[in-house]
């Protein structure tokens, strides 16, 4: 039998104004298990807490009921008080007689009667409380970063600098991601390569970082602190340890007509290739679909010219298994396909391009060596139209566009427009926009400079139709401010395509049991307070996989994710929330109902031997809950037909006792 102390708080007049606190304390004295009952002006004050501690000692209390404000307010406070008094912190229950009683009822008798009933329910529950101790599990002190763009790079560097080993898995042959394809970065206009490539080198040289390029994650098991991950290293037919990146093979390869992904298909690369000069690792990769040696067994030129003997046509996909304590998702984004927007003639004219293609056109390492030339005829364009929000903010049809704002387009378009006017002042530049969205440090100033100093024509309105005719692009658009329809004969049109999460994110989310929103962006544990954590413990989010982001935001989120990972890896043991589910093996049927409803994959099954009353043994399949993974929602407890699954702190008999006390 418990020895329960009841402590009724006045909360000044907040409670005492509508609830006769003395009557409540008096009434609860008669409840089973209650050996002490009192009231006080401010129970949460130091004096109030001391009163509780003294009472515990004086009356040998084993459980506490605090009739006060909402447990969401002070449950943690009173648990600490209980601990200070030498009690298990989970031997405390709060009766919420302020928010749910004194503040919502006006008459003293009504409030008092309800407060007594709420107190009785809390007493009934505490009678069934048991001391709870959080579970512990070990932590593998190694992190996995999935994605090697700027988000992944920054996260990996920050974790590694704190002294923990990190592996980066990147599907492409090199790390660098989208940022490596960019020319300049807003709003400072520093060159992307100049700030990114040193970081890529840092990654390559960091003793705590391993890069698995041309690789992907194929399986994830385990839980926070203890993930077992399988990584597939795709065959690149080049021995990474031998290749020096000299490029001789690339020069000699006869299969030169393959669209160059790095330049958005605007020029060609050979079948064996190094994506770009500063690639990390700087190792050649053979495109198996394009190589005649791999397809037909003829050629072998690259192998002949390779001084390092690195070419290996027999290389196979390799599977690596590794343990990690934390996983960071940094799978990034891609521009959406423009196929469904052919009112802008993307498929009809080479001179209608996306912004990322424009980036490559202006990049010194791009297909035109940085000279702004039209893809169709290599002529310099004199009139350029930029169209904003192509596929962004598009709620009409899910297969066409995205309902969200892609966030980065307003700024990079301002950048493109400004740089064009700066380099080629003879070029007329038009930007059609719905709204110009520039929240960010120095962002609006940047956009205004494009208008005021560089003379970019910003027109509020959308483009409705682009008609390629001869060598011009007839742009038909609306100017909402002057209420006119405009007709512009442009030489080049640049579409600010909406961005979407990388296609690899969806299967990865399934492997990680991490949740996604309807747009396939990863969901954060809390949109405001836990923005870099996934709801799945031990899985963290970095960069655009969580939502559209620019570089500064991505880098800060990458750092934040890293600090969360470091915080996790610093721990030797993880302590969990003790209010979690547990299965009574004697009653468990092994039916898998609980497993199916668990949002966290916390429940597993194993065959166990049981001694039966007739001294025989039986092997039964029974559930067990991983305390490090369970978050304590209780979905399993209701799915379980036998009642074998119960939730600590909110047990069946505890809730039933509350029901009984209320309905008495």
């Amino acid at each position, binding site marked *: 039998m418990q020895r329960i102390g009841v402590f009724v708080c006045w909360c000044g007049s907040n409670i005492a104004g509508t609830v006769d606190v003395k009557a409540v304390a008096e009434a609860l004295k008669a409840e089973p298990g209650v050996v002490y009952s009192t009231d006080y002006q401010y129970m949460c004050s130091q004096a109030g807490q001391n009163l509780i501690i003294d009472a515990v000692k004086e009356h040998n209390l084993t459980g506490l009921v605090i009739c006060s404000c909402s447990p969401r307010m002070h449950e943690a406070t009173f648990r600490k008080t209980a601990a200070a008094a030498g009690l298990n912190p989970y031997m405390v229950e709060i009766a919420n007689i302020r928010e749910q009683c004194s503040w919502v009822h006006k008459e003293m008798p009504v409030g008092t009667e309800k407060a007594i009933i709420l107190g009785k329910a809390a007493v009934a529950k505490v009678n069934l409380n048991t001391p709870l101790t959080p579970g512990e599990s070990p932590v593998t002190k190694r992190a996995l970063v999935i994605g090697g763009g700027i988000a992944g790079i920054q996260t990996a560097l920050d974790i590694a600098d704190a002294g923990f080993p990190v592996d980066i898995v990147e599907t492409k042959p090199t790390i660098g991601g989208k940022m490596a394809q960019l020319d300049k970065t807003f709003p400072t206009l520093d060159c992307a390569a100049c700030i990114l490539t040193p970081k890529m080198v840092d990654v390559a040289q960091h003793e705590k970082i391993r890069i698995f390029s041309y690789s992907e994650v194929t399986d994830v098991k385990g839980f926070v602190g203890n993930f077992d991950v399988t990584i597939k290293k795709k065959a690149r037919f080049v021995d990474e340890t031998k290749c020096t990146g000299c490029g001789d093979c690339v020069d000699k390869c006869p299969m030169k007509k393959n669209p160059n992904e790095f330049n958005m298909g605007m020029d060609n690369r050979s079948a064996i290739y190094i994506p770009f000069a500063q690639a990390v690792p700087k190792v050649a990769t053979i495109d198996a679909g394009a190589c005649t040696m791999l397809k037909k067994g003829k050629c072998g030129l690259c192998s002949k010219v390779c001084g390092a003997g690195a070419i290996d046509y027999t290389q196979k996909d390799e599977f690596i298994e590794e343990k990690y304590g934390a996983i960071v998702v940094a799978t990034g984004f891609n521009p959406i396909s423009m196929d*469904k*927007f*052919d009112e802008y*003639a993307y*498929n009809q004219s080479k001179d209608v391009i996306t912004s990322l293609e424009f980036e490559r056109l202006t990049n010194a390492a791009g297909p035109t060596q940085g000279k702004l030339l039209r893809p169709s005829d290599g002529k310099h364009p004199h009139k350029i139209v930029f169209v904003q929000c192509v596929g962004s903010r598009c709620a009409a*049809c899910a297969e066409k566009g995205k309902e969200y704002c892609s966030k980065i387009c307003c700024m990079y378009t301002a950048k493109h427009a400004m740089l064009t006017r700066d380099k080629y002042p003879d070029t007329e530049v038009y930007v059609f926009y719905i709204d110009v969205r520039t929240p960010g440090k120095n962002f609006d100033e940047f956009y205004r400079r494009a208008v005021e100093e560089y003379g970019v024509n910003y027109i509020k309105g959308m483009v409705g139709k682009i008609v*390629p*005719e*001869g060598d011009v692009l007839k742009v038909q658009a609306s100017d909402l401010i002057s209420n006119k329809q405009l007709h512009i004969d442009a030489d080049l049109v640049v579409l600010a395509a909406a961005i979407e999460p990388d296609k690899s994110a969806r299967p990865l989310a399934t492997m990680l049991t991490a949740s996604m929103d309807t747009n396939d962006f990863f969901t954060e544990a809390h949109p405001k307070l836990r923005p870099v954590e996934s709801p799945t413990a031990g899985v963290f989010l970095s960069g655009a996989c969580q939502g559209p982001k620019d570089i500064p935001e991505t880098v800060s989120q990458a750092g934040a994710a890293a600090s969360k990972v470091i915080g996790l890896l610093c721990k030797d043991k993880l302590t969990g929330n003790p209010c979690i589910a547990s299965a009574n093996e004697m009653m468990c049927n092994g039916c898998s109902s609980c497993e199916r409803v668990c949002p966290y994959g916390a429940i597993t099954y194993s065959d166990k031997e049981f001694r039966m009353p007739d001294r025989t043994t039986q092997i039964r399949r029974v559930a067990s809950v991983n305390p490090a993974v369970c978050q304590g929602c209780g979905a399993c407890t209701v799915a379980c037909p036998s009642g074998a699954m119960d939730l600590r702190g909110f047990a069946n008999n505890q809730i039933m006792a509350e029901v009984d006390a209320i309905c008495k």
Partner: protein
Amino acid sequence: MKFSYFPGCTLKNKAKDLDFYARRSAELLGAELEEIENWQCCGGVFTTSRDEVATKLSSVRALKDTQAKGQALVSVCSACHNVIKQTNHAMQTDKAFADKVNRYMAEESDYNGETEVLHYLEMLRDKVGFDTLKEKVVNPLKGKKIGAYYGCLLLRPNTVMGMDDPENPTIMEDLIKALGATPVVYANRNECCGGYIAVESPELAKKRSNAVVENAKAQGAEMIITACPLCKYNLIKNGADIPVVYFTELLAEALGIKEDANE
């Protein structure tokens, strides 16, 4: 393959060619077009308003008649197809509207948009197959550079019509290829010719029609094909200086059955 066929008023009159060659070609391709008995004019344009009931009844009657025969409904005129298909969609999706219509018709069974509605082009693509068609071509139109003119009625509204990508359609280009000619893609192929505005504002119709023809020519078209009598009228009346013909004429020519329809 048997289909219910809704020709429409213009096809019985000014656009006999469109009808005649459609029937002849279908016959050759093994598609039987059974003309719906006592069909009534579709009205030319679909009235989008949900409280317009009477203007949609002729379409519903044709659809219901087709349903009773258990066939798909085929029409060749863009306008008829558009009106019937949109009406069918409204019967499927707008319950309040369908109730009104069914109460008005007061027939034994209600109609809720069960009939499949096809344009002749869809019949060629999805039922006959362009590959089959290609095999039947005896007179390939080699070297002809042809611009397909879709106009608006075949493609829009896309959520209802669903024939093809409304901004980058290929069905007529694929037909042109199957007939052995070279399609010319031009952006204005899905822009409006002016339509019935020829009554209200002939200048506007002229402007729109010219934009279509000029764009087609600039991209290299030597001939324009269409499925719509009004499109053809507007383009020619407003001074098209390349031939504008019905796609069925071209089809018949390639199949080797071209002859004078007005005989």
